[in-house]
């Protein structure tokens, strides 16, 4: 199985390192050809405005939507969560997210960098807390009925899944805790 990391911009190197530590041999995805070769994909944090632009100029947007609709396991963190959402507030009016998970998010919903924070999260299915690192993080403002919330902060979902799509508003790639990457990789193997 080949796990890819979308490498247009952002924290792709940290995800690459975390995936490598789980024992898979990840590849960087920058072109439609790269995308066609992977069996699972991580969409990292970064600047969602930049990444949405580069998705179009790299001609990845359409094939990416098709692959995910056809069951490609995908894990979107922070900007990755924004990209996969249905609606985004406080974004650029000329940009639309991919609309693949039934979530509405507000960009930088927790505030500017000064409000960025760490917190221990209770995640359903994990036996001890996970240190969540939130950086200018998106806030889930509406969560659709098909979406399962696996962790929340002050009543807002921060780790959510809908079928093959897993999203977090925090950055598991910035800590040494591999449990969420392992969970994602295990599920991707199981889906094959």
């Amino acid at each position: 199985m080949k796990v890819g990391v979308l490498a247009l911009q952002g924290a792709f190197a940290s995800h690459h390192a975390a995936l490598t530590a789980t024992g898979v041999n990840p590849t960087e995805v920058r072109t439609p050809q790269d995308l066609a070769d992977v069996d699972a994909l991580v969409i990292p944090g970064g600047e969602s405005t930049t990444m949405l632009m580069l998705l179009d100029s790299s001609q990845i947007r359409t094939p990416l939507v098709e692959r995910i609709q056809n069951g490609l396991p995908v894990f979107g963190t922070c900007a990755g969560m924004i990209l996969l959402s249905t609606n985004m507030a406080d974004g650029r009016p000329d940009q639309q997210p991919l609309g693949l998970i039934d979530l509405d998010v507000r960009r930088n919903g927790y505030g500017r960098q000064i409000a960025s924070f760490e917190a221990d999260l209770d995640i359903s299915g994990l036996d001890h807390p996970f240190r969540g690192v939130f950086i200018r993080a998106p806030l889930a403002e509406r969560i659709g009925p098909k979406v399962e919330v696996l962790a929340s902060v002050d009543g807002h979902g921060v780790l959510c899944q809908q079928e093959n799509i897993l999203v977090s508003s925090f950055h598991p790639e910035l800590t040494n805790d591999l449990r969420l990457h392992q969970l994602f990789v295990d599920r991707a193997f199981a889906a094959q």
Partner: protein
Amino acid sequence: MTDVTRQTGTQLVKRGLAEMLKGGVVMDVVDADQARIAEDAGAVAVMALERVPSDIRRDGGVARMSDPKMIEEIQAAVTIPVMAKVRIGHFAEAQILQTLNVDYIDESEVLTPADEAHHIDKWSFDVPFVCGATNLGEALRRISEGACLIRSKGEAGTGNVVEAVRHIRSITGDIRRITQADSAELFEWAKRLQAPLSLIQEIAETGELPVPLFCAGGLATPADASLVMQLGAQSVFVGSGIFKSDDPAPRARAIVEATTNYTDASVVAKVSSGLGEAMPGLEIEGLETRLADRGW
């Protein structure tokens, strides 16, 4: 439901934002209109300052932190992170920028230094700092003072990439040499670089700087961005190179594309076509002031 305890201003959170800016372009802007052009072009952040470095160079005089009103206008105009510069050692300017909630503070040699011996104690701030460096020792001294992101200095406002190349090569070259050193040689490295031994030992183990390494100073073309990314920069800062060129918007966009696709020369070639004149460049030998010499 129990409330979650939030810890702000940690090293992880401060360095983390720099991780999110990797593979991107940070653009110097002097007003809200330029900030919008930068965001439209795909900048990952903007650096708000009153004059771009080439104008500071031309005008002379003392260059200071920007007017807070101008910074607030830029914050209101864009949704991407906003950085702003303070003079080296001027912690009161930094305190002001922290109250303005800027996302990153650049303690910058482009402004006129306020202290000839001391940089700011950056550990005492919740907003992260980026600092310039011409070599690994300078980078590690800034990190020991709390910097969360290093940019190689280059020579700002010249449109000449030669100093940026010198500085990024110096930093990455010494990192490579340290990974080859034995444990006894690391003490000598710490002395030679005038840098903390613990950071030298960390580099020997990891083979990289403890914080992200970006490149700045004199970049003017998509090829310049590709060059420094291939030399080991993780993102680029472009100052005068965009808004002092003939046609800023397409040049800004082209530099963004080249930074993402720096390993693919065919993409860099395509985006380099028909951009008009780059900013006029300056020979380093002819400069009255070498900005990179500021900082200690």
